[in-house]
């Protein structure tokens, strides 16, 4: 990565971290989902900076255009009546301690790893990805289709089952 790209990466990274923190901490569920949307967009930008343009656009497509909409949809269906749904009180701090420990450990390990900077990225990412999907990773690709189908059926069964 060049100097400008590194700077952009750090800048957007701060945005991502702050929005993720807000999404996790806020009591208003609507704000939480919106903040998640901002976080996902920031991560998409990070993917683009890392020269993974296809992943970046898929992230916007599936996450922001799909998952966030689904979440808003579920929120609105499950909070009928109250228009500013709040989450209840939360568990006290053992989880916080654990998260601090895991996060701190990971950060220390990353700082100590001393990995080299990545080299130049290939230009034709989409071609390479396509070859990979239908070549070496074909099994994973096919499996993904099965998983998606199973998820669709499961979601339908779970959501409709109660009504009868």
């Amino acid at each position, binding site marked *: 990565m*060049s100097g400008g790209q590194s700077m952009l990466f750090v800048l957007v990274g701060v945005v991502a971290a702050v929005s993720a923190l807000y999404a996790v901490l806020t009591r208003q569920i609507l704000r939480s989902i*919106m903040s998640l949307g901002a976080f996902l967009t920031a991560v998409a930008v990070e993917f683009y900076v890392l020269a993974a*343009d296809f992943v970046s656009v898929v992230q916007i497509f599936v996450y922001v*255009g*799909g998952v966030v*909409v689904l979440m808003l949809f579920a929120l*609105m269906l499950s909070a009928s009546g109250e228009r500013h749904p709040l989450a209840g009180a939360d568990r006290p701090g053992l989880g916080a301690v654990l998260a601090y420990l895991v996060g701190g450990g990971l950060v220390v390990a990353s700082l100590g790893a001393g990995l080299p900077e990545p080299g130049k990225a290939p230009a034709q990412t*989409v071609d390479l990805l396509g070859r990979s999907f239908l070549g070496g990773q074909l099994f994973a690709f096919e499996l993904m289709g099965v998983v998606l189908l199973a998820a669709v059926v499961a979601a339908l069964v779970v959501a409709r089952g109660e009504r009868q």
Partner: protein
Amino acid sequence: MSGAATFAWGALWGAVSLTIVGALTTVLVLVERKISGRIQMRVGPMHTGPHGLLQTVADIVKLLFKEDVRPARADAMAFRLGPLLTAVPAVLSFAVIPFGAPLIMRDLNVGVLYFLAVPGVTAVGLLLAGWASYDNYSFLGGLRSSAQFISYEIPRTLAVVGVVMLAGSLRVSAVLEAQRTVPFLVLEPLGFVLYLVTTLAEVNRTPFDIPEAESELVAGYHTEYSGFRWALFFLAEYGALFAASAFATVLFLGGGNGPLLPAFVWFLVKTLAIVFLTMWIRWTLPRFRSDQLMRLAWKVFLPLSLVNLVLAGLAMQVVAG
């Protein structure tokens, strides 16, 4: 390009796109009202300026000076964010539209996918606007719009996959290059029809305008909006309509390819022809019912788009000889 130059170019293009969207909305609203007048055998707006040409300009001035009313119990942040999130993707999608060969902001590796992905964010905006208004009509409009968006996105994307198969690339310039001799409309007529119909659903236009449905939902998600925020919804609608028509031109009509005239002119002529087609449809057909609309998406368009994929494969074989 260096970082600063890229940034400057992006900022410039952003300003240009905003101007284009603003000007387009002004013109298209007037054109639409005139066309609807013709189709319904009346004259349309006639009083402001010669033949009513200044009608939308006057409307804009009025909208900008209007009071910004917000329902007392509305969620302030979501109420503000809603119109923004509907309008911004429409402007962003102009980044990959080739107005003639050199006039494209960024010829992304994944340009076609970008164009499909970015306007999808509009659904979030509509849902938020409907929810934040604290009004049952708006709420219903918001819910309907998101369900419709998610349903029609699938056949729409599959219709475009056919084109991508034939072009062998997601790059906008490569798609245009592949159509130098034969536009994909010839090879992919079903794909074109699918793209056009699902696009009508994506930009919420009749016969798919149930999120708005002025006669039953009192304009749906934007019932409670006024002044400039309301104008943003209009910008979004016409900006997205033009962008989607421009992309239909790119994907199926060969973009700026054509004899004699410069690419820019050809591009505009083809795009405006499609815009006219959508207006014609809007003022001719009645609106679908909500359940009919869903059935249409899942039981008609989805299978058809799969058939289209097979046809695209056959067309690939034909082209390859």
